[in-house]
């Protein structure tokens, strides 16, 4: 036992002290934050960019004033101007673009054009489309000669926003959000895939390094091969956990700082609004509808999302994540260790890598599908089968999984990883001392049956 801890310490210390580890550990959360913040900033900039758009119609006056101005958009309804002339000069005249509406639009949906130098933002297009759709519907309705049409229209104007409520066995009711469950499923599934794969591959490289530098024979004259293998696997697992915890810590810190600054500065609330809008349009609109009288609906919405997120079964998710990380990593790392021991250099690993990468990439794909349809039978089976279950199960968890399924999955996982570690140790023991021979799966199968 003592010897394993010496090996673990070396594996851990040499990796943690590497420059690349320190850089990655600090840089990754910054990159993650950038991935979230940059699109927000871009969205903000777009919305704040003031745009003036010229509107030309072939039947002047038909749609006049239909597309309303907003804070950042101004529509100029021009008459007696030819499209061809304006096309050349609209930029000098200070217009962002020209909206050309044909009278045929009532019957032909695409009889409308937006001409601009740049790709127009989607928000602008949606604004124009929805305004015109409404107007045309209204005009069509008017042809039926209904009395008090305007009043009726106002009355029937409806918004629907589904509030999802989850009820557990004890009858406790929780407000949930599919958006948050999806985000969480995506994040944990992907993170699991990354952690298992990256650190599993590190084990393989470590084994190859020891084999090619011939250091391995010196070590196995002091410790048992399985001690060396397990020491390496555990040491690298600890490196992974360390990095993971630092990431969690830094991310929570960054989010905390952001939240504080956003809630403090009123002019920045739009950031939140934009973030939430992109994630959960429905909730946003609901909040706007029900809390319109409040001075700062965005803040209310923001905290609502936070509450929603807090309603996730965090305890279960974290415990399961750690369980599946440890067992899943042990499973794959032991396969990687066996492969590393069987080859003479890294290029030779190719032939063995494919059968190993297929299940884990399949798992990731199923996990992504799980977000669309958490109850599908494919997701169900893949969350039980040990090679795919770590990634798929953690992706299923935010949507609620019956306890018996988790129990079965965990049981299978434990049995399988023990079997794999045992087999890997046998292959490893023989492989590390074999040089210059091209190894095949068949050869590895033979090593499995060599005696001590």
């Amino acid at each position, binding site marked *: 036992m003592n*010897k394993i801890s*010496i*090996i673990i310490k*070396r594996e851990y210390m*040499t990796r943690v002290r590497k420059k690349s580890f320190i850089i990655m550990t600090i840089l990754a959360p910054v990159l993650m934050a950038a991935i979230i913040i940059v699109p927000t900033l871009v969205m903000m900039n777009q919305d704040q960019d003031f745009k003036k758009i010229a509107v030309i119609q072939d039947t002047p006056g038909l749609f006049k004033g239909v597309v309303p101005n907003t804070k950042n958009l101004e529509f100029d309804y021009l008459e007696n101007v030819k499209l061809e002339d304006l096309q050349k000069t609209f930029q000098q005249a200070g217009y962002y673009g020209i909206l050309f509406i044909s009278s045929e639009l009532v019957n032909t949906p695409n009889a409308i054009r937006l001409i601009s130098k740049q790709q127009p933002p989607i928000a602008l297009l949606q604004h124009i489309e929805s305004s015109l759709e409404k107007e045309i519907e209204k005009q069509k309705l008017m042809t039926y000669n209904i009395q008090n049409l305007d009043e009726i229209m106002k009355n029937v104007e409806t918004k629907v926003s589904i509030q999802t409520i989850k009820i557990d066995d004890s009858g406790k009711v929780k407000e949930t959000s599919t958006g948050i469950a999806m985000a969480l499923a995506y994040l944990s599934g992907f993170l699991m895939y990354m952690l298992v794969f990256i650190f599993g591959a590190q084990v393989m490289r470590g084994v190859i*390094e*020891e084999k090619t*530098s*011939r*250091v*391995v*024979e*010196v*070590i*196995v*004259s*002091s*410790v*048992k*091969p399985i001690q060396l293998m397990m020491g390496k696997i555990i040491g690298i697992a600890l490196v992974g956990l360390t990095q993971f915890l630092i990431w969690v810590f830094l991310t929570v810190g960054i989010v905390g700082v952001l939240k504080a600054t956003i809630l403090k500065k009123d002019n920045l609330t739009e950031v939140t609004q934009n973030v939430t809008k992109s994630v959960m349009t429905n909730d946003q609109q609901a909040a706007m509808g029900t809390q319109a009288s409040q001075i700062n609906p965005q803040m209310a919405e923001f905290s609502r999302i936070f509450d929603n997120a807090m309603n996730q079964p965090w305890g279960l998710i974290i415990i399961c994540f750690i369980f599946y990380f440890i067992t899943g990593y042990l499973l794959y790392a032991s396969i990687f260790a066996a492969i590393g021991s069987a080859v003479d250099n890294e290029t030779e690993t190719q032939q063995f890598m494919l059968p190993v990468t297929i299940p884990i990439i399949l798992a990731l794909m199923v996990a992504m599908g799980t977000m669309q349809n958490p109850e599908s039978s494919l997701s169900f089976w893949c969350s039980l089968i040990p090679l795919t279950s770590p990634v798929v199960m953690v992706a299923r968890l935010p949507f609620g999984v019956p306890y018996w399924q988790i129990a079965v999955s965990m049981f299978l996982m434990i049995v399988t990883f023990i079997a794999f570690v045992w087999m890997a140790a046998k292959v490893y*023991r023989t492989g590390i*001392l074999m*040089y210059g021979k091209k190894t095949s799966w068949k050869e590895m199968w*033979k090593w499995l049956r*060599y*005696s*001590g």
Partner: protein
Amino acid sequence: MALFEAKDITKQFGTQFALDKVSISVPEQCIFGLLGPNGAGKTTLIRIINQITGPDSGELFLNGNKLKAEDVLSIGYLPEERGLYKKMKVGEQALYFAQLKGLSKAEAMKRLKYWFKKLDIVDWWGKKVEELSKGMQQKVQFITTILHEPKLIIFDEPFTGFDPVNTNVIKNEILFLRERGATIIFSTHNMESVEELCDNITLIDKAKTILEGNVNDIRRQWAANEYDIVFEGDVTLEGNGHYNILNKQTEENKSTIRLKTAGEADTNEILRTAVKSGKVLSFNPALPSMNEIFIRVVESRN
């Protein structure tokens, strides 16, 4: 008493025998040569002694007791295919290996300082291994092999990578270790060093023991009716019915003549003839070199 014994060790890989009932017995404080051509099974035997792999059948004894897992702490092993972690610092690495052999950090530090000084590599303590020359690396490796003061030390080709000066340094260290009570198993293809260092040998070929015993006894057994006569000055000796001249070497004031007698020889008769030819300085049975014996034994089996 034998410090180490291996009895009827058999090891098979698939259908191929790596060792077929091989036995060795290594007396205490002996330098024991484990010889054999490439692929004979030496490395497998050494790995079995180090408990890196287990034998299919056969028994191993250290100090009269069956070899146990903890016994790796009383064995030091310098493998032929040796290596160090390239990116790790020399001192750190030496400490790591010492700790794996059960030394405490403080004790390991103390001994490392002594040995680094003795082998003149103190300045390299903080350097990475990849910055060291091959000879330097070998010295570090040598130290890590013997640092825990093992009772049994196994050297597999210990002199590769050393220049003649350092070879001599290491040779003296090996003799010094024996002096201090260590028993040494020494595997090499360098037969000169076998003659120089080894007391006993075992020669393995194709998984079987084909020659074993005390080095001098073996050489005498293989002497095969050859004698060296050393004369003062340049002397020529003619062959006759009793013996043939194999060769003659002349240097400065001496000439050495090797002759081979036909069958059992009357050495006095030879000497009488020799005395007539010049002044005899010495007359000895010529011992064949281990190199010759090795080649003859192995080739006779093919």
